[in-house]
């Protein structure tokens, strides 16, 4: 499948652009999609635990297991086969883990969007009574705590492009959730990213390229520093 990445979108640090173009003519065999190496998660990602936090977690685990140490192992559950798991396991990680084989172009995404999404989200993703999907803040600033004029959208707020694939596949279109095959979800994801200026109109997406899209707001998110105590945060 042909994978074209527009200059502005992919994460430049990964150098994925060139690699993806080299691979572009090689179709990804279906079973290989899950075996793709996970792209590095960026080090500042909230939720990656540092050494001290890993230690705290290990201690919490010991405590938790000690709480139930007096109870036997019950064995009430039934082994889940890989097929059983695959039937429900649709989650996509920020590293692209779980992305299915397939691909979709911006162009095809536009056609699908006109048929299935436009009535609720607007011709250019501007929203109506439903959620706005597209729009950037000038300079990609992030003024949302103090300025109400800008809308929270995929382009202005979402930290990971993989979330778009995951959410559309599980929950949209609203009247027929879970009805879109992977190729359609790739295409719609590509089109919405294009509406946000994050892909060119000739681009396509697949399991390799989607997790490499660098979202403008990626580094805006910080972990929760509220811990109780006298300080208001």
């Amino acid at each position, binding site marked *: 499948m042909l994978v074209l990445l527009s200059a502005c979108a992919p994460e430049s640090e990964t150098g994925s652009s060139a690699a993806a173009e080299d691979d572009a003519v090689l179709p990804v065999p279906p079973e290989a999609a899950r075996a793709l190496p996970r792209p590095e998660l960026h080090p500042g990602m909230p939720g990656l635990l540092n050494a001290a936090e890993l230690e705290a977690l290990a201690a919490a685990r010991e405590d938790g297991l000690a709480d139930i140490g007096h109870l036997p192992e019950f064995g009430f*559950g039934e*082994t*889940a086969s890989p097929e059983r798991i695959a039937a429900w396991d649709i989650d996509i990680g*920020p590293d692209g883990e779980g992305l299915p084989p397939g691909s979709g172009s911006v162009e095809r995404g536009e056609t699908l969007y006109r048929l299935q999404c436009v009535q609720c989200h607007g011709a250019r993703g501007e929203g109506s009574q439903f959620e706005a999907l597209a729009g950037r803040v000038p300079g990609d600033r*992030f003024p949302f705590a103090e300025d109400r004029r800008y809308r929270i959208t995929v382009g202005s707020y979402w930290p990971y492009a993989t979330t778009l694939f995951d959410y559309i596949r599980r929950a949209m279109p609203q009247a027929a959730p879970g009805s879109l095959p992977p190729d359609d979800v790739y295409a719609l994801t590509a089109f919405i990213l294009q509406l946000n200026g994050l892909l060119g109109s000739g681009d396509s997406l697949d399991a390799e390229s989607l997790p490499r899209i660098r979202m403008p707001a990626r580094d805006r998110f*910080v972990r929760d520093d509220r811990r109780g105590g006298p300080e208001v945060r």
Partner: protein
Amino acid sequence: MANNRENGGLPSRRDVLAGVVGTAAVGAGAVAGAQQADTPKPRPRAPEDPTKMQGLVPRPLGERSAFETPRRLVRVLEPSSSSRTPLQYLQGIVTPADLHFERHHGGIPNIDPERYELLIHGMVERPQTFTLADLKRFPAESKLRFLECSGNGGTAFQNQGRYPRMSPQEMDGLTSTSEWTGVPLKLLFREVGARPEATWFLAEGMDAAVMTRSVPMEKAWDDAIVAYAQNGEPLRPEQGYPVRLFLPGWEGNASVKWLRRLDLSDRPFMTREETSKYTDPLPGGKARMFSFGMDAKSLITFPTFPERLGGPGWWEVRGIAWTGRGRITRVEISTDGGRNWEDAELQEPVLPKCHVRFRKLWNWDGRGATLMSRATDETGYVQPTRDALLAARGSYTRYHYNQIRSWRVESDGQVFFAG
């Protein structure tokens, strides 16, 4: 939560007592037809002297007195996905299950309990499925705990005193307390052999949104419950029937309902509900992510809009307080707009991560007064003023609105929300 609403006329006193408040206050057409406050309801009848006739025979299913018609508040302005608990109607700390608030993203699914299965997989030694009967067979645990939507109170925060005709239900009705029963999650995680490298797990619902949140493993080893009962009976459909995740003290959205799958991993999943939503923009171009804990909060539920005090004299100021970080240790009341504060009495039981009822006798002199409540929790955290919260979070931060609320009592006894 929509802010674009208007205030209409006062509901009748009878509707107010019935907990139907807020219906008129959100403007014409804003509330489901069945709840229109202006539809006159015939008053139920009762015999002149009930001692002179035999009463009703026992019935297989009880119901409220015909004189009591509390209702959750449902908005129909937008496609509605929430309903609010009539806090001003309630006494004590337990919310009747049929008045527990709801919030969902894809409607309430209809799930056959006999076909129900919970799948646990990912970073585990033995991926397994559990039927509802399996879950019920494990040693059970019951806890009285509050559940609050982290968007609760947003309208009051962003509009300060602009909607004086706001009842506790309208303002803060996305919080409730129940006795939740289920299996400690750590027991299930031990059964499947959760690997020590697992730092997060994904919880996924069986609704049309196939709702997902990432949860730190630490919560599982601490106090997370896979719950199947609420106030002694199976969960209500809108609360996740037949099985939900319950994360005590954490924002409601993370307690995924209609739970079907737990996937253990070594990083969060970055679902839509923890990126696009349920993140808190902060001043300085940042947003807080995974802001699970609910900070200490208190709310006076009497006297509040639309109540009208009958005259000067003794009144008991009542309300609820709660914190996601342990126990409430103190609630103070001010009747002079925050100049002087006095301790309220905390009604036993004072449980961790649970609504606590507070009371304070007040001898009203009949002049205008501003009532406020302020909670402190066991970490030493004191419920902040709106200004303090604004300074820390900015005017349009999106969740976790626990600022002090005020109520203005006019000299005619009418009570209004005052910011």
